[in-house]
């Protein structure tokens, strides 16, 4: 799969360069955006942090003078954007959904968007890849596997509890996992009542559990039974978010608002001259490591500090630079 990704990547790069070349050849056709409108679903802490960091990032870049405007969807009834001269950065699923209805000539970059949701919004809108992109919330599987490998080199059997959505990811997960020398064990959940019986079956044969986002499996309601049951089996859970680690998962890779803002600013600056050719959706480039040391201590797992794990992982990522590729579902 990695090689296929690579192929897609190369293909995309080729087309992108082609498109950029086209724009450069006919500069009067393409109108660079002069400002950025950040549309946020709600003024949440992470959204506001993003806005601050994004502005600061642009300020620090001398070569650009993009205006930044902020729209809070919870305060307006209609979204009005000066189309054709703006890049819209949509924070959150709702903002991305609303912004995707803007004229296709206004490029939209989603942030804080889960990949499956981006895929379905792409499929359900008139937009195409060049004018609709995202920095997805999902950390690349290779990075997640690398975290587990770094913290617990002895793990062989890695359990995955999959729901109706995440099952679609299984092919990718399995291939990436096997590349990282894991034996991937899976249990599929079709209804909520199956959760605990399937989880116990999985825990009995797994060395650790890796949580994969799914609206049925990993919810606010299931976090208690999943973490308690896993703890009873003395098996660590590797989460997909910082909050899951706070709740009781052993560790996770995640990206802060600041890190996402840095990546978004890079895209905004780079795409300014060719607004119709946003880069394809990408995984978070910068990331952090979260470890729950209380849980580690109770499970008798000795873990280095978060920074050294991060450093070690960066070293490993340099060896496989394809990390940012995300898998797109075929659009109908």
């Amino acid at each position, binding site marked *: 799969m990695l090689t296929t990704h690579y192929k897609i990547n190369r293909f995309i790069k080729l087309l992108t360069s082609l*498109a950029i070349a086209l724009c450069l050849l006919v500069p009067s056709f393409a109108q660079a955006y002069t400002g950025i409108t950040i549309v946020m679903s709600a003024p949440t802490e992470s959204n506001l942090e993003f806005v601050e960091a994004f502005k600061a990032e642009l300020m620090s870049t001398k070569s650009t003078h993009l205006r930044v405007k902020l729209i809070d969807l919870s305060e307006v009834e209609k979204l009005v954007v000066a189309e*054709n001269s703006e890049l819209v950065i949509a924070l959150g699923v709702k903002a991305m959904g609303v912004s995707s209805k803007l004229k296709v000539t206004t490029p939209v970059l989603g942030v804080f968007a*889960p990949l499956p949701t981006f895929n379905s919004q792409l499929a359900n809108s008139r937009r195409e890849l060049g004018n609709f992109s995202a920095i997805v919330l999902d950390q690349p599987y290779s990075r997640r596997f690398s975290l587990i490998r770094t913290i617990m080199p002895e793990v062989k059997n890695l359990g995955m509890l999959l729901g109706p959505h995440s099952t679609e990811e299984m092919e990718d997960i399995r291939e990436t996992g096997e590349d990282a020398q894991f034996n991937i064990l899976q249990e599929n959940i079709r209804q909520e009542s199956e959760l605990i*019986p399937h989880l116990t079956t999985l825990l009995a044969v797994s060395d650790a559990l890796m949580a994969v*986002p799914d609206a049925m499996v990993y919810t606010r309601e299931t976090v208690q*039974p999943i973490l308690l049951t896993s703890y009873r089996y003395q098996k660590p859970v590797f989460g997909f978010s910082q909050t899951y680690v706070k*709740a*009781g998962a052993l560790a996770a890779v995640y990206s802060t608002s600041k890190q996402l803002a840095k990546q978004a600013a890079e895209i905004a600056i780079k795409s300014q001259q060719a607004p119709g050719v946003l880069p394809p959706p990408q995984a978070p480039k910068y990331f952090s490591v979260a470890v729950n040391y209380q849980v580690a201590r109770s499970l008798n797992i*000795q873990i280095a500090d978060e920074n050294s794990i991060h450093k070690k992982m960066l070293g490993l990522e340099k060896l496989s630079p394809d990390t940012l590729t995300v898998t797109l579902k*075929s659009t109908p």
Partner: protein
Amino acid sequence: MARRIFNVGVALIAAGYGLVTYAGTTEDLDTRPVPVYPVELKDDLSEQDYLGELPRVLTVSRLSQSLADAPSAVTVIDRATIRASGAVDIPELFRLVPGMYVGVNAGYVYNTNHAVSFHGMNTAYPGNMQVLINGRSVYTPLFGGVKWSELPIALMDIERIEITRGPNAASYGANAFAATVNILTSTPSETPANTVLATHGNGRNEAFYRHAGKAGDLAYRVTTGYRQDDGLDERNDFKRTRFANAQADYQLNLSNNFEFEFGLAEGARGEGNAQEDNTIFLPRTKQINNYYGLARWKHHLSETTDFQLQAYHSYDRSDDETTSVNLRPLIALISPILAASLVSDSIYINNEVITERTDIEAQHIFGLGASIRAVWGASVRQDTTYAPHYLGNKKTDKFDLQRLFGHVEWRPHTMWTVNSGAMLEHNDFTGTDISPRASLNFKPHPNHALRLGISSALRTPNYVEEKFDQKYAIATTLVAPFPRLVLQQVLADKGNVNPEQIISKELGYVGKLGSVQLDARIFSDEITDVIRFNERTDFTVPADVLLVNPTNVDTGLNSGSAKVEGLELQTNWKITSKTNVLLNHSHIRIRETHNGLERNFTKSMPVNTLSAMLTHDFNNGWDATLAYYQTSETTQLGDGDPVDLIRRTDVRLARKFNAGRWNGELSGVIENLFNDHYQEFADYNTLKRRARINVRLDF
């Protein structure tokens, strides 16, 4: 894959085309508004799934020390082991704990059903073990020990049982003397919606129904059941118990959690056997009933800080009335005139016992830097006891207890863990005492840990040792100088008994060797101020009372010291993913170090106990267990008699099935496969082969 490339390609080409067409409409700078309608998410993930706050589940108060860091040896009996054992009674599981003695006992008054003790010194009512169910102490204040068959709990609700081997007063209070049993039930959110379980077998029928559900942030579970146990052959020890319990978790917000528990049980018990008592406590049926309620508030302050407040109340009643045989012929042996003058032929005894317990405890757990974790807290408890026959009056006696405890775990280095703690306790019987402990764990490798520990604990005397005034009295029609009362005084406690003290030293190893988990320890426990029964020499009666047993009136007192030494070994070998072996062994000797111990004291623990359990998962849903238990000869205290070496083999075969939303299991168990007619605890308890079938359905 080719299709995907094609799609992406088409998308990009289309994007390029968009650019070109867009170039033609550059003048069109309209600002067409887009309505902000609520985006329908359906099953789509949102950023909330990644960024939304989640309740803190594994807070520091929920996280236990890893076995490698723990200050004591711990045996964990988990749900899989409970299931594989085929046991229907909680105490039967303790046969898997090295150092534990378990004997079925069909006693004849105030029966406990199973005599369970750790490292001997056991009567039918062992008071040297703390037993908790979800943090609620269930040992009885009157005799000590636990009336196992009366607990309103179903085995299927138990998630795990943790047995701390060795004194642990600093964490669990004074009666955590020889060991602590902590029974933990599964949380409602982990329980399937509906479960039906039924068992039918030799002398045993039981049925349970459980329902679990959720209502917003409230998760609950209700279990109800009926248990019919015919007891042992030739003993009047049947037990019929109806019970119900409920458990609820309410997550108020991210950092506040409330837990509630309720339970009640009632039923009939057969008691009395002419073999031991053919005059007073004759074969009869008594009624028992009990209930309890518990509330717990867990407040999560930070990643390393939790606060917990817990309160519970429990009520236990045993309604036992008896009328003796005609006593005139017996008294006629002393004096025919006296016999003729008795106001009645027989005596009536109201042996009703009501005990209540109210307990409030606060606990604060916190971390200091990365290397220190500490817990401290305080509790107050009141036990009340109404036992007219035993206490010699109709008053309700009150026993108050206050406790202050603290424990610190310090990890100066990844290889070293220091545990230290103490409990300060004040109670009405023995005043104020302190029990400290300390241990040092050395972990040269994550898979290997050595532990050196010293721990002390105190055992407060029970009512039977401190306050009993148990007698049989019958009036006469005579006047002075002849006796107006004929009295047999069984127990006349002097009171002021000091607590029994244990100082336990141990060297332990916890580790993993390949696929074998190993827990081994050698220990030396010094027990001083042993509480025992001895003749009370200063017992006097008024001149007009005839005491028929002047040289046989007992009292609880401190006398003698002992050393208990030995080794305990616990192994869990996962041979393959389908086959597992548990092997537990203990070798223990009790020596008298200071004269004055009760007869048979040194024989009160079998020198060797062995338990082994082989489980195998066949493909296609079948699994089987072969278990073997061996206990060398012993003589238990109290009503105990010398019993020989016991060898018992159990087999279990189970078939799981899954039919849509119906999951279940059908199983059969044979206990004592070779039908050895052996005795446990006393020579009147003869165990024979017993078989059961069991069906369980989850839906």
